[in-house]
C-alpha cells in the first residue's frame, strides 16, 4: 500500500510540471511573436 503523503507529493509535482511546461511553451510562442513584431517594425 502506498503512503498517501507520497501520492500527494507526486500529484503536486505532476501538476507543477504540467503548468511549467505550458508556461514555457507560451513563453517560446511569445518570444517568437515579439521577434516577428520587432522585425516588422524595422522594415
Amino acid at each position, binding site marked *: 500500500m502506498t503512503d498517501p*503523503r507520497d501520492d*500527494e*507529493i507526486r500529484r*503536486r*509535482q505532476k*501538476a*507543477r510540471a504540467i*503548468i511549467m511546461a505550458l508556461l514555457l511553451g507560451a513563453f517560446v510562442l*511569445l518570444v517568437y*511573436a*515579439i521577434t*516577428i*513584431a*520587432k522585425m*516588422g*517594425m524595422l522594415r
Partner: protein
Amino acid sequence: MTTVTATTDTALPADWRDLLALTKPRVMSLVVFTGLAGMLAAPVGIHPVLGFTAILCIALGAGAAAALNMWYEADLDALMKRTAGRPLPAGRLDRQTALHFGVGLAFFSVLLMGLAANWLAATILAASILFYVLVYTVWLKRRTPQNIVIGGAAGAFPPVIGWAAATGDVTLLPVLLFTLIFLWTPPHFWALSLFVRSDYAAAGVPMLPVVSGARATRRQIALYTLPMAAAAVAPWPLGLAGAFYGVAAAALSLVFLILALRVLANSAGEPEAMKPEKQLFAYSILYLFALFGALVVDKVLA
C-alpha cells in the same frame, strides 16, 4: 520581524494554486486595467503583440511585488483574520519558495518589458516594484500611519508604465493619472481600515484609525477626496482629454464625494454599523475602473 507561528509543511512541494495566490490576482486586475488604459490613452499606438507583452509584464511585476509583500509580512498576516488564510501564514508554503518566486518574477517582468517595449517602461516598472517592497512594505507600513499615503505611489505607476511602453516617454497626462491614483489610495484604504480596524490593531499596524481614531480618519477621507476629484477632472480643462471624459470624471467624482461625506457624517464605532464606509470602499474600486474606462472611450471618440 518575528517568525511565522503557523507550522509550514516544507516536505510537500508547493501547490501551484498557492503560488498563484501569492500574486494577489484580484488586486492585479485593477493594476492591469489602469496600465492598459494608460497605454490606450497614449497618442501613438503600439504593436498589439508588444502591447500585450507590456501589460503582461505589468501584471507579472505587480504579482512579484505582492509575493514579496506576503513573504515579508507573513508574521503580520498570521495575526489578522482577513489575511490569516494566505498560503504563508496558513503554512501551505515555505517562505524561501515565496522569496525565490517573487524575486524571479520581478527580474523576469522587468527584463521582458525592457526587451519587448523599451527600457524607460522597464525602469519605471522596476522602480514601482522596489517602491512597493522596500519603501511601503519594509520601511513605512509598520512605522507610520502615513504608510498608505506615501506607499500609495507604488500602485499609481501602472498607467505611467503603460503610457511609457507605448510612447517611450512620460508627459503631463500620465503624471496626472499617477496623481489621481496616488490621491485615490488613502480614501480607498482608510475606508477599508475603518471597518477592519480591530485586525490592524491586533497586528500592531499603525493604520490611521488605530493611531488617530475613526473621527480623524473620516475627516482625512473627505479631505483627500477633494484633490483627488480635482486630479480626476483636470485632464479635461487642460485639453488632455475630451468632454466625454470630463463629464464622466465630474459625475463619478461627485458620487465619490457624496459617499465620503456620508462616511464623515457616520459616527459608528462597530464594523456592523459602518455601511457608508463599506459602500465607499466598494465604490472606490468601481470609480477607478469607470474613470479609466471613460478615458479610453474618450480617446476612441476623439
